[in-house]
């Protein structure tokens, strides 16, 4: 059933992007854009793979991946927050740092075998026609992401801590008058975002592809950053966006495996065309939805 295949593939392939997009949502809500998300995914993917290969436990791998992603994001946070560097330029530098480091240390792990995460069909739920195979026949990291998105939404939009984070992204001066440190909040948000991106990378290497290769994220971190805008900085909309990307990526192999011939290059461009179209349609609303202090990043004036 091609529809089930594409949608199940969308969930499977969208999960890594979803983790990274949720992490980036957190960072941007606090007023910092991190184009180094792709780098955090790469370091997360390698660290998770290396530790899973060493310990034989993919969960230990995920932990390492999360830490590695967080560590790289901490570099970004330090340069941007402590040194006042340009956020966009720094993000790219951090991306290339992550790509270079993982290419160097990753060579030893190409071709190493791990015991990866296995799909765990949820008893009962996975029997439901349509919804079962699409949603409930995946690895544990996919299920964890089902819980993470609403949790992050609740934290950001319904909890006191979330109010503090969002204030840091809107009016840091107001936050400061209330005795909070916008700087500290931003540090935590950026590092936490990198942590989630690292888990996304870990999903790629230890659950989805079961392999480490240089630059294996292939631009998914950038898709995640685009997705945050696409989703208007809203964690729950990011879920739909991530799965839409995943489904667009799964569409091409699903069609080909059935012998349908389409213009391959158009299919490969589909995920990006979807983004551009969405950004055009949603353009005006997005501008209004952007955290106020974040939008200053794009106006080429220093954020502090």
């Amino acid at each position: 059933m091609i529809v089930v295949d594409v949608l199940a593939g969308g969930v499977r392939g969208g999960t890594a992007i979803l983790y990274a997009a949720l992490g980036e949502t957190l960072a941007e809500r606090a007023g910092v854009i991190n184009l180094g998300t792709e780098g955090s995914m790469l370091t997360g993917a390698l660290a998770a793979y290396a530790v899973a290969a060493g310990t034989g436990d993919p969960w230990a791998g995920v932990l390492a991946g999360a830490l590695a992603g967080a560590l790289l994001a901490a570099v970004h946070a330090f340069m941007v927050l402590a040194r006042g560097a340009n956020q966009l330029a720094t993000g790219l530098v951090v991306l290339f740092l992550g790509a270079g480091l993982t290419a160097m240390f990753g060579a030893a792990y190409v071709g190493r075998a791990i015991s990866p995460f296995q799909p765990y069909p949820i008893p009962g739920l996975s029997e439901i026609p349509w919804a079962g195979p699409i949603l409930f026949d995946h690895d544990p990291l996919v299920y964890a992401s089902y819980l993470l998105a609403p949790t992050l939404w609740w934290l950001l939009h319904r909890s006191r801590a979330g109010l503090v984070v969002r204030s840091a992204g809107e009016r840091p001066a107001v936050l400061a008058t209330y005795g909070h440190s916008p700087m500290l909040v931003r540090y935590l948000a950026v590092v936490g975002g990198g942590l989630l991106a690292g888990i996304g990378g870990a999903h790629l290497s230890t659950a989805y592809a079961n392999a480490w290769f240089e630059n294996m994220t292939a631009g998914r971190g950038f898709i995640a950053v685009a997705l945050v805008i696409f989703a208007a900085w809203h964690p729950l909309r990011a879920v739909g966006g991530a799965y839409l990307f995943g489904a667009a990526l799964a569409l091409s192999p699903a069609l080909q495996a059935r012998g349908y011939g389409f213009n391959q290059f158009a299919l490969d461009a589909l995920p990006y065309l979807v983004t551009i179209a969405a950004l055009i349609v949603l353009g005006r609303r997005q501008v209004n939805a952007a955290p106020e202090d974040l939008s200053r990043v794009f106006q080429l004036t220093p954020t502090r």
Partner: protein
Amino acid sequence: MRLARVGAAAALLLLTACATNTTETAGEAKGAPGTGGTKIGFILVGPKDDYGYNQAAYEGSQAVAKAFPDMEVLTAENVPEDDNAARVMEGMIRKGAKIIFATSYGHRDPALKVAAANPDVVVLQQGNIVDGAVPPNFGTYFGTVYEPVYLAGIVAGKATKSNKLGYVYAFPISQTLDNINAFQLGAASVNPAAKTYVVNTSNWCDPAKQAEATKSLISQGVDVISQHQDCTATVIRAAEAAGAYTVGYHADASTLAPKGWLTGSEWDWGPLYTKMVETAKAGSFTGSPYNANFRVGLKTGDNPFVQSPYGMAVNAETKQLVEDAKAKISKDGSPFLGPVVDQAGAVRVPAGTVPDYKTIESIDYFVDGVVGKIPAS
């Protein structure tokens, strides 16, 4: 004047190498390209440990080092396919190399340049073709990669129960199309009902796309998966996890698929490199078969692309069928012996004709029995 220069060169060689025996000096006096060197150079376009093409070339260079203990083998990794390659090769020549292997397709033009500037050096280029006259100290060489793939297709055709084979490939270039066609022809030669379903990933190494492609094929009923990718582990592990059979490419990956491994194709450049070096060292390179666009296969021997060991799932009957096919290809000269019919039913290679390597290396169609279309551009 010229003698003086030769003498100076010989003295320099003595100084740098401290080991020049009389036969080599004699060869040098004769001036045949490739003779009199103390070193052999190899340039690689990628890292020597990529578990693929470059690692295979590197391992071949190490086999040469073993075969000629009196020669030093120089290797250079990550050599770009531009003028930098020429500089690296010139550097190797200055160090005393008279035989250079430029192992990437895109190294051809710098290699030709170096060959023209150094008529006493033999330059061998892996995988590309020289149109027109081949310089006397130059040659291109490659294996017929599709022959072991054809043999693997036989194994796949016998192993499948659903008669659906899957092929995950990167880009629709002639090398991948040749492999897919050979795989299907091999399978159909023992199992006329077998069909090959193809999915491309538009990337030489995007593991996530490979995982999705493999899952799509398996959910479609495919029970044997093969591939043409630079990185191969993801597809093999995904096939093994789903209980499907695996046919490998580039390397023996049977440890990744202990249950489902059938066979595969892998590189073994050592024997061919060694023979080429022997020929060049002996001063008989010019006019030899290597002084051309040299292509090796089962018929000529020394094919650098060989069949991987069988897995447990392959029975004696299948192995015999493979041996029979090997004998037949050795006699015919190609698995693409006509008639070869494309998907639309048109005869592309007439009955009884063996296509030459130029025809095979510019193929642009799928044969009958392949399910899927070549992406339009």
